[in-house]
């Protein structure tokens, strides 16, 4: 029975969580026919970028019928407490406790993190109302904690809302996930949004865009504002978010869909990266940005 041990300390370099996530992912694929335990027992430090990714990877494996379990019996009391307070096991689900959304987010006042939130991605009045309320409270907590002025609050809210709305409009999924943490000593904000929907390629296919045949082409098309909707007025979100974060705030933008991802950082030429190695499980859309509070001028970088 393979035990895949998560490394004790996930570094804060931008690529460190990705490195560990893809290493674990490769191990899971290698052992997919057996009972697997993802072992967090030695963990002392981690971050939303890794934890949200591994959480969704685990959920997808379970949904596909794999025999996989989590060992969250951590010897480090601080880390065990962190996993509990951030609702790592199932995520905070605002639709199951709608009357408590404000209270729950209020309870994180003064903390550097907000709970891993697992919220509805549907378009019914009820789901829309829950999601809009949740975003309102969450964005105000972030604004308050980071002491953002109106301009920066607008930018952070834009980045969150645009991605959440993209998922609702295109991902054909029931749930949406958001996990964020502020690192005051290092001076950045880690903002991660993800879903386990049909991917960008699946979204184009679902609207009969058969001219787009690969994940790499789908990322290119999405970057170009090529909407999956017939209405011309839709689209553009990814391109604008990426520009706002990277060009406007010197941040780093990472978007993963299927076996392709877009990574942007200031001063570097952009590329779509594609993995030709065989992979079966996918994560879709993962955004991370970093904010430097020392300068009060968003410098979104590590």
């Amino acid at each position, binding site marked *: 029975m393979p035990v895949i041990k998560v490394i004790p300390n996930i570094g804060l370099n931008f690529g460190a969580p990705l*490195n560990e996530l893809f290493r674990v992912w490769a191990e899971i694929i290698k052992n997919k026919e057996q009972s697997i335990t993802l072992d967090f027992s030695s963990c002392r430090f981690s971050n939303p970028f890794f934890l949200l990714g591994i959480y969704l990877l685990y959920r997808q494996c379970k949904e596909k019928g794999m025999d996989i379990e989590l060992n969250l019996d951590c010897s480090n009391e601080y880390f065990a407490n962190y996993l509990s307070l951030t609702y790592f096991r199932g995520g905070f689900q605002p639709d199951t406790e709608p009357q408590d959304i404000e209270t729950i987010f209020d309870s994180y006042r003064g903390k550097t993190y907000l709970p891993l939130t697992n919220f509805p991605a549907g378009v019914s009045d009820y789901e829309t109302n829950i999601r809009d309320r949740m975003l309102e409270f969450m964005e105000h907590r972030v604004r308050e904690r980071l002491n953002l002025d109106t301009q920066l609050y*607008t930018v952070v*809210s834009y980045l969150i809302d645009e991605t959440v709305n993209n998922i609702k409009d295109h991902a054909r999924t029931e749930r949406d996930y958001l996990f964020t943490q502020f690192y005051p000593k290092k001076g950045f904000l880690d903002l991660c949004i993800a879903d386990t929907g049909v991917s960008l390629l699946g979204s184009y296919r679902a609207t009969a865009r058969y001219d787009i045949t690969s994940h790499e082409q789908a990322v290119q098309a999405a970057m170009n504002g090529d909407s999956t909707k017939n209405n*011309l*007025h839709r689209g553009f979100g990814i391109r604008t978010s990426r520009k706002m974060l990277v060009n406007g705030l010197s941040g780093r933008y990472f978007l993963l869909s299927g076996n392709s991802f877009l990574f942007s*950082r200031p001063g570097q030429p952009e*590329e779509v*990266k*594609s993995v030709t190695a065989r992979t079966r499980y996918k994560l879709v859309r993962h955004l991370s940005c970093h904010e430097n509070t020392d300068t009060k001028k968003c410098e979104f970088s590590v």
Partner: protein
Amino acid sequence: MKSPATISVQNFFKAQSLHSREQAQDLFVDISSVMHNHEPVWIDFSDIEFISRSFADELIYLKTNSKRKAFINFCCTSIAVQDMLEAVTHTQVKRKIEKKLPVHQFDSMESLLQFFSKI
């Protein structure tokens, strides 16, 4: 003389930020219900701090496609709200096509992990 119809967005939603296309659709239903022929209606954005691109995009789209669009006026917008309304108005008129990005292929998990270790 009758005073013009005004809808306070803040009162309508009891919120200071607006996030979704559905909210814009709800607002437009209300706008349509108070509109009478050749009488202007003012959409008052006082105390609204943030509107998402989706909300703005949907609102501008609905207004643009309304037969009475000339009578729908937005007022008391903050700079952030005004900027967002102008930005989506611009993109609905003009689409900018970006050049295709180059593609880098990773042929193994090792090369991918090596890339991540450098960023």
